[in-house]
């Protein structure tokens, strides 16, 4: 990490934390419909104005952050929790079917997250759980591929050492050979993937395959905004700014940590 790169990392993290937790500061209930107050321009009471159903746009956008980044967070947790140990185990695996497993893993890892979303939503319909599972799987495959590759290198080094050791100490050497920099590389991978994930969640919501009616999502807000773009063109831009900010922040994070 260079000295100058540090401020970029902290800025990116701050932006992401802000988007994730700013919903605490939401002035209104994001679900509160009030037809009488439709499409109001920005004011002190409604800083971003209201949408076509009279809901406070600012509150909705802030809650959208909770949804999107909540999904991303769950994806990170699930993918890292399963992927790191699985990858290391796969790297040390010396059984048969390794060739086929490698090919399959490479093919699966080459599918971008969007394919996983399409496939999973196709099989299970759209929804929050489907999205999380699909994105976790997508991240998992890439993560396992990365971790396995690093683990294999360490394994080869470890076996050289093991040849000199004997019995119980072999197991210890194997276990202690966690690849260096692995956490950092995993975080870089997840950050760059998360940028895609943010864009994709919004994109799919936008075309109607999104999270579902219960949750508020930036893509859905943009769909609403598009319908009234003639009257209130800026309604599409608020969620867009947040989407862009988060995707950009994840990208910067991934790049700077490399």
């Amino acid at each position, binding site marked *: 990490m260079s000295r100058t790169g540090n401020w970029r990392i902290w800025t990116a993290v701050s932006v992401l934390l802000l988007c994730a937790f700013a919903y605490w500061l939401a002035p209104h209930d994001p679900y509160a419909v009030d037809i009488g107050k439709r499409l109001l321009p920005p004011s002190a009471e409604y800083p971003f104005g209201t949408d076509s159903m009279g809901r406070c746009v600012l509150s909705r956008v802030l809650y959208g952050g909770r949804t999107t980044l909540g999904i991303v967070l769950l994806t990170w947790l699930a993918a890292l929790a399963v992927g790191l140990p699985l990858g290391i185990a796969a790297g040390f695996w010396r059984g048969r079917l390794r*060739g*086929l497993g490698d*090919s*399959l893993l*490479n*093919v699966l890892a*080459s*599918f*971008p997250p*969007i*394919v996983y979303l*399409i*496939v999973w*939503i*196709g*099989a*299970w*319909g759209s929804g929050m759980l489907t999205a999380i599972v699909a994105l976790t799987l997508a991240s998992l495959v890439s993560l396992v591929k990365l971790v396995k590759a690093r683990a294999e290198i360490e394994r080869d080094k470890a076996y050289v050492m093991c040849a000199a050791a004997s019995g119980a100490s072999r197991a210890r050497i194997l276990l202690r050979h966690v690849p260096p920099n692995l956490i950092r590389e995993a975080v870089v991978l997840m950050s760059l993937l998360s*940028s895609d994930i943010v*864009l994709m969640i*919004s*994109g*799919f919501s*936008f*075309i*109607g*395959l999104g999270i579902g009616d219960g949750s508020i999502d930036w*893509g859905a807000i*943009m769909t609403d905004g*598009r319908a009234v*773009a003639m009257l209130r063109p800026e309604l*599409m831009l608020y969620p*867009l700014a947040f*989407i*862009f900010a988060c*995707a*950009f922040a994840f*990208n*910067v994070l991934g*790049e700077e940590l490399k």
Partner: protein
Amino acid sequence: MLVRRAAASAADIMLTFAAVTLLSFLLMRASPIDPAEAFAIRNSLAPSVETIAELRTAMGLDGPLLKQYGAWLSKAARLDFGRSLVTNKPVLDEFAVTIPFTLRIVALSAVMQALGAIALGYLGYRLKERWSGLVVRAIAIAGVSVPGFYLATAYLDIIAVKLQWIAIAGNRGLLRDWHPALILAIPMAAFYGRLLTGILAKEMEEDYVVYARCQGLSEGYILFRHALPHALLAMLPNFMQSVGFAVAGATIIERIFSVPGIGNLIVTSVINRDAPMIHFSILLLAAVFMLTNRMSDAARAWLNRDAARRGEG
């Protein structure tokens, strides 16, 4: 020797693809969508339990899973992938019609991406000392952070509606294709442009560059005549994979531009929960990615062989 390697490679591809078909089959069977029920409801048959059971037998949805898979596999080998639950036309036919549309867009997009990536990558390095270089690099990162669907809608709204440059319906042929191709190309050009800048930076630290400078050759000449060709070749394998990404990315773009391509059909099938169509979509996407992966690996292998022949490390 070469034949043996090709045979092993082919076997590998077949086995992997078979594994993918099995996985997708299991996935579709595990999903809560019951194709029989969906079919019955869509075709306005009174969905009594018996009707559905009959349909299930007729559609081959009962019996042990492995047997079902075998049946499906044998039908697939004859290129029979079932019929769409919505239109009742053969799945393969439905997709066959859409392929040319997507292919044209992806091909056009590939050309635009290449040009855009080269321009952004080259400028990103050439201007790296000046603030304009920072702008170029910022554009590159921004390019991958802006949602494609927004670019598509904004583009449509501005170009088509406000400026009326294209009619939204109608306008066949190349003129119609290059709009979605452009939107598809922008994020990828940004992505590869950034990659190229990095590769150029590394290439310009090589020994031969230092020596060329010692001969008094200009930075621009060295960059253009020596570093750039090396960098482009190094990026060739990556670029081949971009075709796969383009096909996947085309789903949303095609939807927004109302292009009757593969992506649009996939989205429609997913919205309609049209199981046989969805299943085929998975296979199609898998096949596309496997193909591009192989091309990419082959390119990489060829580059390595070429380097070895030339006596490099």
